[in-house]
């Protein structure tokens, strides 16, 4: 189970948070179709560290950028988005 240090609320259990998507996969309103398609459907899905977007859904409600290892579950950093 992850213990996520929310920059606004301090360390909280994973269950308060919801994973949204990889940080490099955000679809923007003015993206060209092929860029939007890549953001929607292509993932590096690394067996290692990736930056991700999470939301503290059951806490402060703020969006966060987590840099996290998907193999060891170690969290390197959590920043407000």
């Amino acid at each position, binding site marked *: 189970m992850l213990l996520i240090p929310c920059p606004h609320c301090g360390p909280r259990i994973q269950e308060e948070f919801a994973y949204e998507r990889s940080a490099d996969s955000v679809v923007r309103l003015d993206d060209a179709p092929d860029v939007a398609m890549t953001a929607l459907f292509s*993932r590096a*899905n690394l067996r290692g560290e990736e930056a991700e977007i999470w939301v503290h859904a059951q806490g402060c409600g703020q969006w966060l950028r987590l840099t996290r290892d998907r193999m060891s579950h170690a969290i390197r950093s959590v920043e407000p988005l």
Partner: protein
Amino acid sequence: MGAGRYSALSLLRGALGGHRHWGRAWRAGEPRGPYDVIVIGGGGHGLATAYYLAKDHGIRRVAVIEKGWIGGGNTGRNTTIVRSNYRQPQLQRLLEYSLKLWHGLSDELNYNVMFSPRGALFLGHSDADMARLAERGDALIAMGIDADLIDRDAVARLVPLFDMGRDARWPIEGGLIQRRGGTARHDAVAWGFARAADNLGVDIIENCEVTGFLREGNRVTGVRTTRGDIAAGRTGICVAGNSGHVAGLAGLKLPIESHTLQAWVTEPVKPMIDTVVMSQTLHCYFSQSDKGGIVGGGDPDFFPSYAQRGAPIRLEDSIAQAISLVPALSRLRMVRSWAGVTDMSFDGSPIIGETPLDGLYLNGGWCYGGFKATPGSGRLYAHLLATGQSHPIAAPFDLARFAQGRTIDEAGAGPMPQNR
């Protein structure tokens, strides 16, 4: 190769000799390329692919390369449920093709995979659930797949230990049962396909991890492994759970995220539940293994991970649901829980097809439903790897469907694996 054909006679002979004559079921394969086809991944799907490549297509220079040992990955981590009662016609065709193979598989492989068609029951907890199940049943019958909508009393007769009270946490109103569905012994499926493939000359190379691909321009000509380079005419990725990682070694990004799925088992008890119980309203499923343990599972962990371990809270969810349906389960001790890594595809359906690289093919994205597809997936993938053309049943599951808006989205959840 192997210990000859298994039969009642060989068993009797074994009994007279104290069962000391049984040999290895398959050779310890050594890389000896070049191969016509290399299958990356020695799970059920990969081994089935190799078997059907040799059997259906007469391709004998085939290798299966496996980073660990046979039966050590997702093949040995699932909850062993076999059924074909899906909602989308493409998935119905795919899983029904597989279910028909399950029904003759032990004879086909000369290996008892302990397939037990004990019925797979979906529960309905409300009028709305029953309407949905009726709609699904009609769609299945129209496709020629068996489905029986049964009422509350019939469900109570089927599993007398259900809490049928009107004040139950999840009242049971009825169900939809596929009587040809059931369970199989998951390790035996891998071992049976491994032995049968080996008997046809396939090299099964364990403890051999792929570290990269051999390339000539846009063509993949083999694999780099921890046991040296191996050349191949065609290379098939078949590593669901790790598809993202292996495809990444070829520079590809897939519509797949790897998520954790957990399962649990209780101490073995006398027969108490003789059908597979599932609730898609709750998302909980369980059955009793032939050894007597109640095996169950629920939702995945909702965030990407390759760690093969999950959070207790997800276990608690599915166990609480199971206990609310069968209160007697609360008296059993849970002896073990474990986790596997699932390829969560971005429409919830598998991917079987070519990749943007020549000579490299992909079979993955099985989400948390790959076990039931093992023989069908292998046979259809073998067709693709042997001929270069997708079989009509597999054709809708190509990688290009995402860009072309042809997703097969059983849950209607969109490109969000954590919402499935």
